[in-house]
């Protein structure tokens, strides 16, 4: 599903300010198809979703009766807001672990490996060529009752009968999603490390800082834009993830998307599903806005120090 996310999240563009806008008829004609496309597949669905979130369901049919009941329900029923909070927590853990894994790896590949740097980089990135679904299933094989992990532990005698908790737990979901998003985060961090000029690191050493202080005072701050971009990516995509909890999470680790899915499907409660969708959307947009700002603040120096 999310195998080819747009890279625009990772590389924020700095639009030139104060550019004069010139409206020409030809330009307008050119813009018509994308506008239609966006309206049909983006604006209209979102507006519909938004409107839907205020209706009610009565015996399986939607009643067009404006109210905030769905929102009230969402914020008072622990099934809904609890799941939402749990999703935030899982996303936070996935983000945390992805950074924890990929930062040292990116640092190591970029600074420590002299020969075959490209090869190592590619090795880390290779999982991206495998479909999301396959990677998620792979974890099922590893963690399942008759899975590799259980068999291994049985063989070396740490456990005496297969353990169930590996699979169908939030840990499995966090593990799988961390595995799935780490390459993306790594790419983003690696790129930002690559952009630090050698001279700047040497200047730091020249001025009396050893390797560690150079790392803390120079490398970390200068790679922050990459960390933020990667973190945003992992966080937002985990927020919307649906397959990993479905395959690996079991009922106790349902995430927001699963709830929405069942509301739209089995429960046939579109209005409440829409409400949860809208809340998620707002939160995600808020996060994107926040990180975008952070990133812009830290990224303003990425163009180097020379000239203007």
């Amino acid at each position, binding site marked *: 599903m999310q195998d080819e996310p747009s890279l625009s999240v990772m590389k924020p563009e700095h639009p030139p300010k104060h550019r004069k806008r010139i409206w020409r008829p030809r330009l307008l004609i050119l813009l018509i198809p994308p506008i239609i496309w966006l309206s049909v597949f983006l604006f209209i669905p979102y507006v519909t979703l938004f409107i839907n979130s205020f209706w009610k369901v009565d015996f399986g049919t939607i009643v067009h009766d404006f109210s905030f009941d769905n929102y009230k329900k969402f914020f008072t029923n622990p099934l809904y807001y609890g799941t939402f909070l749990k999703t935030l927590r899982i996303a936070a853990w996935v983000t945390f672990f992805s950074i924890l894994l990929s930062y040292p790896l990116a640092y190591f590949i970029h600074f420590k490996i002299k020969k075959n740097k490209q090869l190592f980089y590619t090795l880390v990135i290779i999982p991206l060529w495998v479909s999301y679904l396959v990677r998620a299933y792979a974890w099922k094989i590893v963690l399942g009752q008759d899975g590799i992990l259980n068999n291994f532990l049985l063989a070396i005698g740490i456990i005496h009968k297969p353990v169930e908790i590996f699979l169908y737990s939030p840990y499995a979901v966090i593990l799988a999603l961390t595995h799935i998003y780490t390459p993306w985060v790594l790419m983003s961090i690696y790129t930002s490390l690559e952009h630090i*000029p050698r001279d*700047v690191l040497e200047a730091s*050493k*020249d*001025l009396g800082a050893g390797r560690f*202080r150079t790392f803390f005072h120079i490398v970390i701050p200068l790679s922050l834009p990459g960390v933020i971009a990667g973190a945003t990516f992992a966080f937002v995509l985990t927020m919307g993830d649906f397959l990993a909890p479905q395959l690996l999470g079991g009922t106790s680790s349902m995430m927001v998307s699963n709830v929405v899915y069942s509301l739209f499907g089995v429960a046939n409660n579109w209005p409440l599903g829409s409400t949860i969708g809208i809340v998620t959307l707002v939160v995600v947009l808020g996060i994107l806005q926040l990180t975008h700002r952070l990133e812009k603040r830290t990224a303003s120096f990425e163009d180097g*120090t020379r000239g203007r």
Partner: protein
Amino acid sequence: MNPIVQLQNVEKQFGTELVVKGIDLEVEKGEFLTILGPSGCGKTTTLRMIAGFETPTDGQILLEGQNVVDIPPYRRDVNTVFQSYALFPHMTIYENVAYGLRMKGVPKSAQSQRVQEVLHMVQLESLGNRKPMQLSGGQQQRVAVARALVNNPKVLLLDEPLGALDLKLRKQMQIELKHLQQQLGVTFIYITHDQEEALTMSDRIAVMNQGRIEQVAAPKDIYENPQSKYVADFIGETNLLEVKILSHAGPGVVLDFLGKKLGGRMGNNQAMAERMILSVRPERIRVSKEVDPDWPFALSGRVEEMIFVGSIIRTMVRLTDGMQIFTMTPSQGKASLVKGDQVWLSWEEEDGIVIGA
């Protein structure tokens, strides 16, 4: 007094390529020494070895008499001004300059005083709160100098620090840097491939070519007494003639140039050989339509081209036997020569320097 920096037979090899081929160099305390050479001759590599960013594959580097080859850059009392300035983009100008003090553990209050002092020195006191991106190229350059000077280094290394500036700013910064150096008495090792810059700023110039230092001398000396063909050709302009030595008395020599007798003197530290090179600066050559009886010798030729360059005139003369010689004379009201004129050339024995081929 002992030299502050000494390079002894320093070599550097990258893979199979020998980039620096055994350099010996002594830099005196408080001196402004310039390493001058063409692109790729190993200047930056040499400087990086002094700073500690590269380890020599052979030889020794002494700082105040101590071998520093194994001392990492952050523990050497030398600082570098990078060609790219290498300012820390996420820090303000103040923080950039204070960085060196912070790393040395100087207390905060003393830091601020010293930073102000150094910023004042480069006339940037008012810009402490800006980020490097908000400064012009010239201002960034000054910050780089201030940052490198903040710890009172024993030696300041500068790698083409003015390379990125336009000509006018460059000239101005040359003077400012020179003044700063004189005022502080800090030893400067300065890299450039611009000979004019080297001649105006330096106490001594080390001319480098293909990984070797060809000559180290004061600017005037290096111009007047080049010790190799390369130096004669690289510094200023010159005419190089292939000659044979006929006889010599003291420093003066009588030379044979394609069957004609010429005068010259032996260059410093030159071994006599059968074939030598005679170097004559264009402005030392006299050109005239008639032979002056005082001239020790005269070569005949024909004016091939005259180029008016404002204050001087460059005259190309084709000698009767085919070689082209060019001369420079101050331009006077009326041109005394025109293209095609038959002329005679001569120079003082003093001005013809004989060096090894």
